[in-house]
């Protein structure tokens, strides 16, 4: 499993180039951080890696799937993506439903779903709000819920866009544990972050994204 970007450039129609001629190979089983200044193109790069955005020039391969041709759900079975704004990816009526609903659509048995939901609620400290309306949670709770739903799929690769935003020290430590756990399991990760301590703690590789380019650093 790997993500490869071959000579990738990106811009929105009629916009300026956001990324220019990027060549990157990201192996799984590693924790790769993307760092760099605001507006440097980190989020855009992350979205290219999941096929949410398609490259203007060049190709992005997710485990041999070319994102230009692949459907989102095909990439989605391999790669989990955490949006910078958690509100963008939560939409069910309760926290419990949010965790369960994809499995329901896939036709998984009820008991199995319930059991997995309980595990996730505990793991992400969401028991207290299990029956609350997701939009009324605090920012940190929304973030944890979003991450929990992404992990329900057991993706072999994860892309996290600023996962520490809105997390307090204790919750950050909890997130660190989860990352260590995932690493042990062999889940590849690309994490976009400017939280320097967090980067130091987990990075196997650091990519600096700035001025439309990406290079290895630090």
């Amino acid at each position, binding site marked *: 499993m790997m993500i490869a970007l071959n000579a990738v450039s990106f811009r929105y129609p009629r*916009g300026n180039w956001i990324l220019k001629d990027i060549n990157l190979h990201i192996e799984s089983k590693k924790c790769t951080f993307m760092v*760099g*200044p*605001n*507006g*440097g193109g*980190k*989020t855009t790069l992350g979205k290219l890696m999941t096929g949410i955005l398609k490259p203007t020039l060049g190709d992005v391969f997710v485990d041999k799937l070319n994102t230009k041709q692949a459907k989102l759900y095909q990439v989605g079975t391999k790669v989990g993506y955490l949006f*910078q*704004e958690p*509100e963008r990816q939560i939409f069910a009526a309760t926290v419990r439903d949010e965790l369960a609903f994809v499995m329901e659509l896939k036709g998984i048995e009820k008991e199995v779903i319930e059991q997995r939901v309980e595990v996730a609620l505990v793991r992400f400290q969401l028991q207290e709000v299990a029956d609350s309306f997701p939009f009324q*949670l*605090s*920012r*940190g*709770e929304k973030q944890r819920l979003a991450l929990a739903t992404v992990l329900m799929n057991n993706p072999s690769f994860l892309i996290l866009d*600023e996962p520490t*935003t*809105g*997390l*307090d*020290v*204790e*919750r*950050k430590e909890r997130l660190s544990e989860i990352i260590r756990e995932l690493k042990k399991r062999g889940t590849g990760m690309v994490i976009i972050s*400017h939280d*320097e301590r967090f980067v130091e703690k987990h990075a196997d590789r650091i990519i600096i994204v700035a001025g439309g380019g990406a290079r290895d650093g630090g």
Partner: protein
Amino acid sequence: MIPIKAENLSFQYRQNSKIILQNIDLTVDKGEILAVAGLSGAGKSTLCYCLCGIIPHVYNGLMTGNVYINGKNTRDLTLPQIATMLGIVFQNPDNQLFSFSVEDEIAFGPENLCVPRSEIERRVTETLKTVGMQEFRHAGPQQLSGGQRQLIALAAVLSLQPEILIFDEAMSQIDSAGKKMVRDMILKLKEEGKTIIMVEHDFENLALADRVLVLRDGRLAPFNGQLL
């Protein structure tokens, strides 16, 4: 005059639901930087809403006790009236930017305060410089990254030049160069005698504060290095 004073402030969304704020007494002095820490979900944003009048004016719920801004009870003021004294920067930049360009966004506040055009022009230029976003003056909000939007949200409140400022985790997505700029700006505002309340997780930002309080179980307590 005391910029912000909360007296026996309590809040819960519904009768019998969890009490989010409990009998809070708080006085923030002129020229003081107060930081409020606490676990996520502890009610820090709710406290901000109470201090700036959004509660009880916008959100439903049970608020008891009173909040005074410059000696006036928030219950007797409208939000636009409060905005002439106090500016608040919210967490999520997407929910506070509504203009078609950065320039319009920053000019919006002073326009409402009937500031003369030449002065608005000056403030737009100055605040953009303060947050290091001069080159984005004519950009649309969708062209900006999350951190850049937060900087614009900050600039849009700074241009109002309020006496009291509340930052509700307003730096969470800003890069380290930007954070340094914002910290310098906060210290400069303090020198100018502005009163600042900031909700923060970041220890580096907590260091700016004259006083750090922790919100825990609905009560404010002095910070001793522990959030729990």
